[in-house]
C-alpha cells in the first residue's frame, strides 16, 4: 500500500465530486434551459429520492426482506399524514423491530 497514491486518488475523487456539485451553481443564469428541461428539473427531487430508496428496500443485500418493505410502507403512511420526518423514522424502525421480534 502506498499512502501517496491513496491521497492522490482521494483528492482527485474530491475535485471531480466538487465539480459535479458546482457546475450549474457556478454557471447560474449563464445557462438557459428550454422549458421542457426546466419542467423536468422540478421532478428531480421525487425521482432522486425514489431512485435512492427503491433498490435497497425492494432488493436488499439478501433478496427481498418482507419486514423491511412493510416497515417502509408504515413510515410512508406516517409521513404522508404528519409531514414529520422524525415520526417517519421512529415508526419505521419500531415496525421493523416488531416484525423481526414476531419472527416474520
Amino acid at each position, binding site marked *: 500500500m502506498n499512502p501517496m497514491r491513496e491521497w492522490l486518488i482521494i483528492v482527485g*475523487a474530491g475535485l471531480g465530486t466538487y465539480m459535479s456539485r458546482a457546475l450549474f451553481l457556478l454557471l447560474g443564469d449563464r445557462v438557459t434551459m428550454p422549458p421542457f428541461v426546466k419542467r423536468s428539473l422540478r421532478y428531480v427531487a421525487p425521482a432522486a429520492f425514489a431512485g435512492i430508496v427503491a433498490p435497497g428496500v425492494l432488493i436488499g443485500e439478501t433478496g427481498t426482506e418482507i419486514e423491511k418493505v412493510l416497515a417502509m410502507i408504515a413510515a410512508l403512511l406516517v409521513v404522508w399524514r404528519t409531514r414529520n420526518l422524525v415520526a417517519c423514522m421512529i415508526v419505521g424502525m419500531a415496525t421493523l423491530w416488531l416484525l423481526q421480534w414476531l419472527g416474520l
Partner: protein
Amino acid sequence: MAYYGEGVRVVAPLVVPVVPFGLVLGYLITQTPIDQFAAWSSSWIVLAGAAQLAAVELLGEEASAVVIITTVLAINARHLLYSAAINTKFSQLPVWFRAVGSYFLLDQLFAVVEPLPANIRQERLIGIWLGAGSTLWLGWQTSVAAGIWIGDVLPTEWSLGYVVPLLFGGLMALSIRNTAGFVAAGTAGLVAVLGASLPSGVGLVVAILVGAVAGATLEAFGDEPNA
C-alpha cells in the same frame, strides 16, 4: 444569523441517519489496509457517503486509480442534476458563495433547499444553506471519526442502518406535490430496481432522468404544475 439557525433546525432530523452510516464507514476504514488518515480525510475531501464507501473498498483491493475515480464520479453524478435543479435560486448570489456553497451540496441539503421559493431572499438562502450544510458536515466528520475510533458499536441485530432508506423514503413522500410527482417517483423507483445490476451510480442517474422526464411529460398533459 437567525437564518443560520433556521437551517440548523430544518436539517436536524436529516442528520440522524448520518450516524449509523458514518460508523459503518469508519469501521470499514479500520478493517482496510490503507492509510487511515487519508481514508478519514475522504470525509471532508469527497464528502459523499456512498462514494467514500466504494472508494475505501476499492483502495483496499488495490484497484486502479482510473477505476476508483470513475466509480466515485458515477456514484456522485446525481449532484449534477441537483445543482441544475436549484440553479435558478443561485443565479443572483455572489460568486464566492456559489463556489464555497457548492462544496456542501449533499442529498439532504438538496432536500432542504429544493422546496424553498424561487424568489427567496438572498440572506435567508445563504443562512439556511450554511446552517444546514455545516450541521450535516459536522455530523458526518464526527460519525466517521467515531467509527474509526470505537468501531461500529451499534448492534447489528437492531438494523439501525435502515434509518437511511426510511429518511429518504420520507423525503420522497414530502417531495411529491402532485400526480406528476408521484409518477416521477414511481418511474424512477422502477428504473432504479431494473438498473440495479448496472455499474454503481449509473442506474440511479438513468432512473432520475427517466423519472423526471416522465413527471414533466404528465404535467404537460394537464396535471397541475409542481409549484
